């Protein structure tokens, strides 16, 4: 299936290659570079490229291209999903998935890739198993290793791969047993010019951080499970129980993982927590325009909205912007034409606004359309859909774990057309 993998950075250097079958020359990447050039924008590089002898399937993550070489028919999503899994693993191991981190840990990277794929077919992709096979680097361990000459490779052979619960390693021990769940909901919305909602939807995930000894068996129930319209599960979840009782029952992997992701049924009206008043205009035959936006709270359920950021991709003809924010700070990058306004919190008494003049390239026709505003915000302690965890029970172990649930609502792809 997957023949080879090349990691390429933004400037087009191939800084790592790995082959699982016979060696494929680096020159195959030239086709990729060609496509990249054609696409102009990194985002637009087609994920699947056909070359005379190979097919290249690539992903773009964290300013890196993961380019895999394929020789025969294979479901492209299979490869894409796997490449993302590789990137996730790097992230998990090194804290970031960057060129520097990969270069610094090239041996671990190689060992990981060796374990994750055999002859092009995924072998071990569960982070719990990989961590048993190859220990992630820590500062302490690298110091100890250099003194004692020991290694990153686990000296005991892992059993997880063979166990009936492949996602959990055996013999986990913690002094403090804790189980935390983060219910994170994101509002995807498109708001049109007049402020009415064109499209809104809530996408949520429950991320778990489980540090429990032994083999705990958890079941998590909700006050209002019917809200969840479409759910995808971590493999540890027993599907039948969910089907019959709407209870999430599972033996968790150790550490951080995504338990479920869900979509809240679209029939429910989505509360939009903020509104934006905007007045952006460019005068005909003049080199300036007006820019004025104000943000205010709408349906915020009595919570404070914080971490607000407004990002605007201004039209190409904009040269510079002279604005005054009543709150927070703004930057405008004249090269990428991106305006970023870091607002912070909304205080209802005094609504934050950003006003000022826009300098346009003289002579150029005025922009056809006003730019749309991308808004980020965060509301702590609130799941906008109203989803509530009812209780968490643990079976199979004797101790009392410390349990916690946190709710956050964020803006997802939240766009206001102007």
């Amino acid at each position, binding site marked *: 299936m997957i023949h080879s993998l090349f990691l390429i950075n933004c400037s087009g250097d191939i800084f*790592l290659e790995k082959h699982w079958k016979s060696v494929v020359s*680096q020159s195959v990447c030239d086709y990729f570079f060609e496509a990249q050039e054609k696409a102009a924008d990194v985002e*637009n590089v*087609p994920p*699947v490229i*056909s070359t005379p002898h190979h097919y290249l399937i690539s*992903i773009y993550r964290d300013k890196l291209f993961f380019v895999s070489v394929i*020789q025969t*028919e294979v*479901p492209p*999503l*299979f490869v*894409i*999903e796997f490449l*993302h899994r590789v990137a996730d693993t790097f992230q998990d191991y090194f804290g970031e998935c960057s060129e520097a981190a990969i270069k610094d840990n090239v*041996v671990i*990277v*190689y*060992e990981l890739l060796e374990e994750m794929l*055999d*002859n092009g077919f995924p*072998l071990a992709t569960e982070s719990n198993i990989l961590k048993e096979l190859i220990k992630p680097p820590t500062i302490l361990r*690298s*110091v100890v290793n*250099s003194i004692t*000459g020991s*290694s*990153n*490779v686990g000296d005991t*052979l*892992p059993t997880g*791969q*063979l*166990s*009936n*619960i492949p996602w959990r390693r*055996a013999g986990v021990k913690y002094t403090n047993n804790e189980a935390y769940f983060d219910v994170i909901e994101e509002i995807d919305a*498109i708001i049109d010019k007049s402020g009415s909602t*064109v499209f809104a*939807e809530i996408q949520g995930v429950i991320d778990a951080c489980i540090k429990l000894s032994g*083999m705990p*068996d958890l079941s998590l129930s909700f006050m209002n499970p019917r809200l969840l*319209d479409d*759910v995808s*599960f971590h493999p540890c979840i*027993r*599907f*039948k*129980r969910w089907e019959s009782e709407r209870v999430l029952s599972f*033996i968790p992997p150790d550490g951080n993982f*995504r338990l479920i992701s869900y*979509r809240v049924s679209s029939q429910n009206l989505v509360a939009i927590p903020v509104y934006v008043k905007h007045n952006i205009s460019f005068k005909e035959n003049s080199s300036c325009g007006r820019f004025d936006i104000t943000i205010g709270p709408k349906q915020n359920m009595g919570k404070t909205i914080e971490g607000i950021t407004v990002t605007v991709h201004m*039209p*190409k003809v904009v040269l510079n912007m002279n604005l005054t924010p009543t709150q927070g700070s703004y930057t405008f990058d004249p090269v990428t034409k991106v305006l970023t306004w870091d607002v912070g919190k909304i205080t209802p008494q005094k609504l934050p606004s950003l006003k000022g003049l826009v300098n346009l390239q003289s002579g150029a026709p005025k922009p*056809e*359309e006003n730019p749309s505003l991308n808004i980020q915000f965060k509301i702590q302690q609130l799941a906008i859909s109203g989803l509530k965890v009812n209780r968490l029970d643990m*079976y*199979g172990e004797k101790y009392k774990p410390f349990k916690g649930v946190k709710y956050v609502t964020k803006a997802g*792809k939240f766009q206001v*057309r102007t």
Partner: protein
Amino acid sequence: MSSNSFAYNEQSGGGEATELGQEATSTITISPSGAFGLFSSDLKKNEDLKQMLESNKDSAKLDAMKRIVGMIAKGKNASELFPAVVKNVASKNIEIKKLVYVYLVRYAEEQQDLALLSISTFQRALKDPNQLIRASALRVLSSIRVPIIVPIMMLAIKEASADLSPYVRKNAAHAIQKLYSLDPEQKEMLIEVIEKLLKDKSTLVAGSVVMAFEEVCPDRIDLIHKNYRKLCNLLVDVEEWGQVVIIHMLTRYARTQFVSPWKEDDGLEDNEKNFYESDDEQKEKTDKRKKTYAMDPDHRLLIRNTKPLLQSRNAAVVMAVAQLYWHIAPKSETGIISKSLVRLLRSNREVQYIVLQNIATMSIQRKGMFEPYLKSFYVRSTDPTMIKTLKLEILTNLANEANISTLLREFQTYVKSQDKQFAAATIQTIGRCATNISEVTDTCLNGLVCLLSNRDEIVVAESVVVIKKLLQMQPAQHGEIIKHMAKLLDSITVPVARASILWLIGENCERVPKIAPDVLRKMAKSFTSEDDLVKLQILNLGAKLYLTNSKQTKLLTQYILNLGKYDQNYDIRDRTRFIRQLIVPNEKSGALSKYAKKIFLAQKPAPLLESPFKDRDHFQLGTLSHTLNTKATGYLELSNWPEVAPDPSVRNVEVIELAKEWTPVGKAKKENSAKKFYSESEEDEDSSDSSSDSESGSGSESGERGESGEEGDSSEDSSSGQESESGSESGVEDERTAKRNSKPKGKSDSEDGEKENEKSKTSDSSNAESSSIEESSSDSESESDSESETESRRVTKEKGKKTKQDRNPLTKDVSLLDLDDFNPVSTPVALPTPALSPSLIADLEGLNLSTSSSVISVTAPVFVPMKTHVLLHRMSGKGLAANYYFPRQPCIFGDKMVSVQITLNNTTDQKIENIHIGGKKLPIGMQMHVFNPIDSLEPEGSITVSMGIDFCDSTQTASFQLCTKDDCFNVNIQPPVGELLLPVAMSEKDFKKEQGMLTGMNETSTVIITAPQNFTSSVILQKVVNVANVGAVPSGQDNIHRFAAKTVHSGSLMLVTVELKEGSTAQLIINTEKTVIGSVLLRELKPVLSQG
């Protein structure tokens, strides 16, 4: 050297390398520049590495290897170090070894001779007792692409495919593909191995072997038949990557083996209706359909078993299921996939891209599927262009009369987008909507005309092109628009647009008689500077005008034709010549010029604006070929449905063959299929088994069991299958969950199953199989029947009884199981497997039906005394009172356990919290399955919980602590001997036979004296069953009453006979192997029977 190596260590470890002198500097891989030339430093470095590899310090070697791997990773050549590296292949240090493996796999191909040196190390490792070492040796050995070792690899693969460890077998499946690509000559042999591995029941192996199948022999669909159902059933538990491969394979399989579930007239509309129909209507419809078409149950099985996978977190799995539904499910059921596919759109851009492509293809054929999700395809300004265009494509496909107005409003926003490429695509989209939906054609046209005054040229040009196409459909009424466009010619520069306008004018030259010649005049002026595309249209316009209005345009046209004659482009010169010959009359002009007008001014059909995804649907969805819209190497066509389904019995071949096998002549060939059948049923049992285990949460055995199974302890393993029958009913419910737990066991069973089943003969197993696999209850029956005849009949009966008895009471327990069936999967909290008693092992080895005609089974208890025993008095329990009684049900927690029901009462006026069982003090061998902690018990509340205790067939006391949040109370349960039994039913004949075998030491007897009225059979029965949980044996003689039971733990028979003598005496006889229990029971029965 030592100081040196230390320095290296620090470098690789800490990363904060300080340069330690000249030598160290030269070894830094990252900075080959500096004082040394690139080349010389490379050479020198390698020298250095060689030295380090030869050192006897592991740390130096390790460091060298790390740097070599670094070189490989960067794509630098490190092949010259081969001899030095290969020496370390036998290193004791695991990390060095691993890195050497990495190196070997990379360079062995180039250095074949030297690579051979390492082979013996791997061959040795292949025999290692540790499965992981065997597996990794096989992995590396098969990755070394050296043709000479093909025979060695073949041998290794064959051996590994029979390995006890499923993990090794998985690696064997991978090795098959590697060997095949190295030497395709081996195909035949490899297919044999694949065939064998396909029979494997381990979920670990399934994905990999199907992958090998797809790569080596995808056309050998016959290999799948017998494994089809197994694969369907295992699917949920296979790891995600394997799922994808299996689903794709099964899709192809289904298309060759089943008839089409799509009705002939199942057109678009019909299907759309279905989608919206209420359930009832749909049912009705399906009912109707059933008359003509009945879906093969296997077909249904596949569709049903893949459905849960739509919920997978892995996009590839979801897509695979979606394409399966698309290609093989009845059209009315395909709707469910759309929700999951739309969910994937939240994922990263690459996933979106592929999913949108597939949705685009689907939405052409079945609009209804995605219509409810219309808004999910709305475009955001931040989407990459490729995503935007795909979304637009889908929106177009979904557009209909109902939603078009909303869509057009949305499109208006897009047209203004700063991304001009996208805006242009939107305009085309509007054009397509206009042609497809006649209601809005005019609206769209007006909108597009407005766009003609747009400032952006690309937008205008695109609009022109689209308008041209639209006008072609209804040219009559649009003279105004044409005039408007003619004016545009002055300003617009985009060639396509200019060409379009010219064509339009030419085509409608009679409708705009004044404008057309003027346009031609202008064009003639600028002819030389126009684009080729425009020039061709000028020529066309000229020709058309010449034919319709030659008075005004004759000269102009000739001028243009002259210009064209000397054009640089041969196309234009060609065209010029052609037109001239055709329209300008001269003596040489042939017959054709008469028809010139007809040729040029023919009525041309309007273009059909079609989706670019139209032609993709002949590729299987979700494939690379579909994405690229060309056939990729190795793409396997999805065949059309067969007209007539091939014989469906190839999949359940077992049924037929088993029936044949029933005739005493056992043929070797048939044994094969029999094997499979049993193993399958066994697996089902396994699952139910573990579910029952898990229900208890104790997970009593499974952890260990996996291992013991791997050792090949056949009897023990299959016995665990038996043990579990109690769970079988619930197993159905929770099959999936359960299977997950039972994985290791299922694997190990394969060998066992084979061994044991070679002897097997069976009768009713065939019905068991023909009924659905899910019915594990019937399966379990067949399993119990399927043992060989070598054993004594005694065991046979016992065995059979057990099965039946277990099943009946369990139906009652279903609710209870449901309640508990989640704690279950705590399996790994392994307690040691209770030692199997010899008699149970014997059970497994032999049971037969042929000799005993009687139906024997474990029966339900004849009578359940409601007598409760005090476990904890409320006074001593500070208000918590506990009573227990024996429900005489087979225990769901393990079938060596006696089930005990404990009723807890809160007599205080406060909540009692966290009631659970604390420390246990059990005699050796005794086991206990505790109930789940009770969070709180309300005042005056009472709750009944069940526990299982394995008393090991003794009357020893089980002591444990019953704890609440604040207190702990020591309590005891001592079982009456009569509760250590389970009733069995057997015929009188069997009873006598068994009794005959249990004489001498195994017999105890006593004489009872009591009043004669106590000797009626009902009284005796009542008295006996009150004391002991035994089953009555029908008796032919009035004066003899027989009762049979077996002990719970060991399953030893316990035969009780009451023989009435003259007068008021009776003889009480007990025959059992367990003489101690026998005599205790005798002692307890005697006073009861003697009483009045």
